[in-house]
């Protein structure tokens, strides 16, 4: 009888221990109320490599230098600005385990859906062979940012830096923001860094989803949760 009780107790301990191990993420980090990576109750949009409460590790690849070598500073400044901002995202030009890739490529008017008034567009691709350049729920495998060398000047001025940073926001899952001075505003401006409009502790960060996207259920998300300080 005693051995049966011992066996039952031992089994219970093992099961309980397994449950605990399963439910706790491998890397502990401050919990985020209301959601994990992106804003809760918005369409699902995450990178598949992202694990709750860990860094969002983005590997950025320069695929423009052969055509536009002078964009290098804009590229590195954009990476630094996103990594230096609050939030789980860190962008590097070197590989890390379980990173997610973003290509920065030069393109031109008439390719990749770029018109002559467009500076750039971002394609996000999922795990099923599909890619999209519009705001919709998806789990992103990798991204390809197409920069229009026909409209961007051949330097790393504010317009170019802001365009790199803006498109990076799309690769991170952000939709456009209605505030004209914001990085994620659809028309270029002097912003080159994300702000509290784009990353926040709790929703809605800043700005409303419902104004410009009323009736559009594929609106994407407005902000990234902050936890990294």
């Amino acid at each position, binding site marked *: 009888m005693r051995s049966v009780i011992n066996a039952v107790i031992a089994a219970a301990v093992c099961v309980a221990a397994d449950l605990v191990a399963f439910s706790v993420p491998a890397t502990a980090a401050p919990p985020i109320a209301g959601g994990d990576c992106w804003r809760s109750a918005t369409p699902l949009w995450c990178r*598949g490599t992202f694990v709750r409460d860990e860094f969002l590790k983005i590997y950025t690849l320069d695929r423009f230098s052969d055509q536009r070598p002078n964009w290098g500073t804009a590229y590195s400044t954009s990476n630094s600005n996103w990594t230096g901002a609050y939030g789980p995202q860190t962008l590097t030009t070197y590989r890390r385990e379980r990173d997610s*890739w973003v290509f920065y490529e030069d393109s031109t008017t008439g390719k990749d859906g*770029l018109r*002559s008034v467009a500076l750039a567009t971002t394609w996000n691709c999922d795990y099923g062979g599909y*890619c999209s350049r519009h*705001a919709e729920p998806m789990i992103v495998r990798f991204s390809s940012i197409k920069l229009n060398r026909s409209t961007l000047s051949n330097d790393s001025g504010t317009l170019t830096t802001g365009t790199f940073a803006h498109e990076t926001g799309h690769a991170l899952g952000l939709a456009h923001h209605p505030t004209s001075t914001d990085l994620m505003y*659809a028309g270029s401006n002097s912003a080159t860094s994300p702000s509290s409009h784009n990353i926040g502790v709790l929703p809605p960060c800043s700005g409303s989803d419902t104004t410009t996207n009323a009736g559009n259920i594929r609106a994407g998300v407005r902000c990234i949760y902050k936890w990294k300080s």
Partner: protein
Amino acid sequence: MKRAHAALLAAVVVTTSAVVVAVAPIAISSDSDPKADLVEAIVDPAASLPDAEREAAYLQQLQSHAAARDEWVTEFEDSARSVTGMQTAELHVASLPPKTTLANAVASAEVVVRAVVEDLTFTPQTTIATLRVEDVVKGPAALPAALRISIGGGPEPDKTYTTGVLGIDPSMPFLYEGMAALLFLEAEPAASPMPVEYVVQAFTGTYLVDAGGAIHPHEGNPFGASVDGLSVKAFTDLIQRAR
């Protein structure tokens, strides 16, 4: 031995409490948080490949999608499907900065016309609108009565490549057939492969004309509030004075 049992029992109680504490939030979040299942990363089959092969796999996916998308848009056009009533989705497109004043917008526009959209042609790279020009506010008097221009937005396939969504370019409203508008048009660059002569100015190039004859600027137009609701005549007069 009894002591050992007591220790084990205590362990069960403590561990069970921990389970309750640890599991409960997960159970709750799975009801309310659609991302609860993202505790585990998704395995990317390309992740185990050498970098060059992984990049090739990604580029192959992009190219395959581009081919499928082009085919889908072409089929959409060839079968004369309509975008009316399609669900909309904003495109991830950044555009040139808006002109800050009406004078700048007018100066930058090669042509300003009042027109009605007569036909839309969807291509993989752009949507071409054929306009019936009703008035030339600025531009050559010899402007063709039917003008073909590049506009923002157009049909995009969804994940099934069967149905689709209407992509909306944030720099302008989508111009459906039958819509009337005052349009500020810029010359398409000579080197552009687009089969049009003009493109709609970003943000400050579209003023929809409602049934009552009032004009309405697009969201993001810096001087839009000052002209919203003006009659076509009053706005046209403003344009002429700004030249």
